[in-house]
């Protein structure tokens, strides 16, 4: 895995992702309107906002699932209006989903192995024969995946079909699959939604550990304000598809527009 950190602590680098005036609409519905912000290498960046603010749409634009009608997205210095999902994946963007998208009938191990798909060089015929190079390759990938299983402390469910696992663990497996792609940029869509306090604390620790140990840049969407304020370096706030605020957790917390949007305000 890429490891940008020295022994001295986390290192925040240059801009890895820059969005400029991104606009997205579905027919008459304006999902995103003129949104700009950037993400620095090695930071934990949170996107927050009320329901329907356009947070998931934003992630979908970043990993190429949606193609915004206006604006540009610059990733690793390359500007492009449209990026296809497989291109995004090949360039080191991985994500998890709000509603878990795992193969329910497959084991934890197999699910995480699918995350290595892009890294496999042998074609399916070789893999089917499971000879020589294909076998060696499989073993290398398995070793890598075992590293992730160890990291996420899910050894006990290695061979358990994912569908049988409780929700919190499924989320962790999904994180594992995203990590298997060795991402430079990791997009997490509500990684702690629906969890109890203990599961949330575990997940927070894993997110921070991923960022810390592998130097992975993380963009996450989250509703739990306590979590967001604790773990992110900078926060961007969306409301009705527009950018409402952008800054450190403290700045955002004290921003008048944000307080209004979240708590409601009397407009005079």
């Amino acid at each position, binding site marked *: 895995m890429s490891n940008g*950190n020295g*022994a001295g*602590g986390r290192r925040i680098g240059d801009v890895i992702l820059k969005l400029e005036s991104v606009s997205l609409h579905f027919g008459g519905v304006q999902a995103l309107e003129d949104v700009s912000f950037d993400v620095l290498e090695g930071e934990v960046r949170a996107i927050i906002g009320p329901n329907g603010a356009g947070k998931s749409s934003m992630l979908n634009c970043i990993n190429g699932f949606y193609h915004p009608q206006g604006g540009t997205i610059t990733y690793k210095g390359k500007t492009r209006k449209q990026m296809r999902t497989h291109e995004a994946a090949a360039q080191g963007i991985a994500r998890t989903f709000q509603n878990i998208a795992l193969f329910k009938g497959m084991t934890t191990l197999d699910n995480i192995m699918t995350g290595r798909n892009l890294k496999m060089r042998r074609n399916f015929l070789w893999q089917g024969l499971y000879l020589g190079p294909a076998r060696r390759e499989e073993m290398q990938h*398995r*070793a890598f995946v*075992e*590293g992730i*299983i*160890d*990291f996420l*402390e899910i*050894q*006990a469910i*290695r*061979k358990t079909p994912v569908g049988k696992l409780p929700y919190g663990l499924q989320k962790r497996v999904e994180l594992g699959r995203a990590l298997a792609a060795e991402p430079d940029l990791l997009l997490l869509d509500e990684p702690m939604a629906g969890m109890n*306090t*203990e599961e949330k*604390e575990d997940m927070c620790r894993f997110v921070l*550990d991923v960022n*810390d*140990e592998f130097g992975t840049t993380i963009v996450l969407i989250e509703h739990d304000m306590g979590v967001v304020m604790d773990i992110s370096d900078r926060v961007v706030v969306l409301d009705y598809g527009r950018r409402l605020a952008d800054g450190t957790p403290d700045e955002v917390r004290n921003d008048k527009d944000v307080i209004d949007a979240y708590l409601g305000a009397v407009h005079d």
Partner: protein
Amino acid sequence: MNDTDKASTDHGGTETFDTFPKLLIENARRYGDKHAMREKEFGIWQSWTWNELADSVRALACGLAAMGLKREDKVAIIGDNRPRLYGAMCAVQSLGAIPVPMYQDSVAEELQYVVDHAEARFAIAENQEQVDKLLEIKDRCSKLEQIVFDESRGMRHYEQSFLQSYRGVQAKGREFDTANPGYYEAEVAKGSGKDVSIILYTSGTTGRPKGVMLTHDNVRLTAANGIERDGLRQDEEVLAYLPMAWVGDHIFSFGQCYVAGFCVSCPESRSTVMEDLREIGPTYFFAPPAIYENLLTTVMIRMEDAGAIKRKMFHYFMDIARRAGIAILDGKQVAAIDRFLYRIGGFLVYGPLKNTLGFSRIRIAYTAGEAIGPDIFDFYRSLGVNVKQLYGQTEAAVFVTMQPDGEIKPDTVGTPALGVEIKIADSGEVMYRGPGVFHCYYKNPEATAQTKTEDGWVYTGDAGFFDDDGHLKIIDRAKDVGKLNDGSMFAPKYIENKLKFFPYVKEAVAYGNGRDYVATFINMDLEAVGNWAERRNISYGSYQDLAGRKEVINLVGECVKKVNADLAGDPHLCGSQIRRFLVLHKELDADDGELTRTRKVRRSFVAERYNDLVDALYSDAETCHVETQMTFEDGRTGTLEANIELREVDSVAPVAKAS
């Protein structure tokens, strides 16, 4: 000392290998590339040969010497069962210093007491979790100087100069070793069997833990005697999964491993133990009754959910096993037809079941610590798993009595172990003397004098007697055996154990000494009762909710009635039948101090904490309101409120029984 001579000649040399570091060097010479330890890491069992283990221990010992570890220094060792931590014990012993293993799940304050009391200069910790606890208490433990950690994950931002990695210390040790040739050998040679090899802190149901000092001779001789009695060989397979701070693990996974030279495997993590058990298939196994009980409960629950044919087959063959299995295991006469059916059952049911449990290859399995339910005990024995009971203490380096093969009774703990003498004091208390008897309690001469007599007899604190076949039977802690106001004998543990033998009852606490009648707190078993409730369409939101349901209280009431019927048949104890009981609204928990770390109920603490409930049991009240402080897993505290229902149970007329 005859025993000393025997153990050394057993090992086949003219030299005496009277300490563990000496044994390690000898084992590396004798067994070389045979496996000494195994650990599952990254999904694969990684093996260490005796040569590799000896090399690793030597490097660590030299590293610790370079850091300034002196003879007689104490070294705290804390973490899950890991080969490197077992290695650390031997490395510390090589330098004549004394390892002090700690319970890995103790909270910081518990740890502080032990680290401080032991005056540990060094600590060797498994991972970040343990290092964090040590850092929290370091300021309050004046003697603690250096901390060595094994797993580096999460440790990169720790910059304290007194923190070193295990590998780093080993690297330093290899340099030191090259610079000082012969140093290691000389240090090992200085050791003798009379030296203290380890301090084990007892968890203690009352008061502060006491540090039991055992010598190399204590551990080595009892280990050797156990090996001889059970005929253990060099090719045994053992899984080390019980806390390293517990004397049993020290004997089974360290002492006997070094003396017999067999391989010990460490599980991947605490949550994978059952799976690792299946993969390793141990031949020599130890588990407290709770583990056998949990395994049986899981089997039964899964059988309830199985299809009708499977269920029928299971019950049919289990009946045959109950009828014939134990007799076959004990080598007694069995009707040919039963023997035949048992064969078929072995193929269809027992074999696959034992395989799922990881018990296929077991030759000898032990249980100890608490009484095991006769049903549970018989279940495993009828499957052909040779489970036996032993009675042991930290002060005896485990073995006091053990059941010989073929003479197994569910309610006794067997005959004296090799080299151990036993006598019953006038008060009814069991006393023993033997090669494993501890040196003394560390820094506690009063306690030593109270427990150990001048001529080496040790008070066990347990009341018991020998039955007609010379097997020891333990009834209760000597000080807990009391009397009701009408003069009937009251043995609380005996009653509690009878209750706990029901799958629906997890824990029970009985009161009665100096009272008019016996009353009990009962803790239901969430898994068993939860499953029972689900099958009856009884919905519940939480533990507390379920424990308060009328149906559940009725269910528990039935168990209490059966216990009374059972007690009525015992001439000594028929007077102490249970009159009133209640089902507790929360699970008794070690984090709240209600259980010890080895999961034994601290009766007096519970009585004090639930004072109101005890008073209510001895009144006419039908409900009682309680507020309880509880500690969550993350250390925060909260309050739990509940209205608890109290129930009355009819007593059964005593049955006159000719014994």
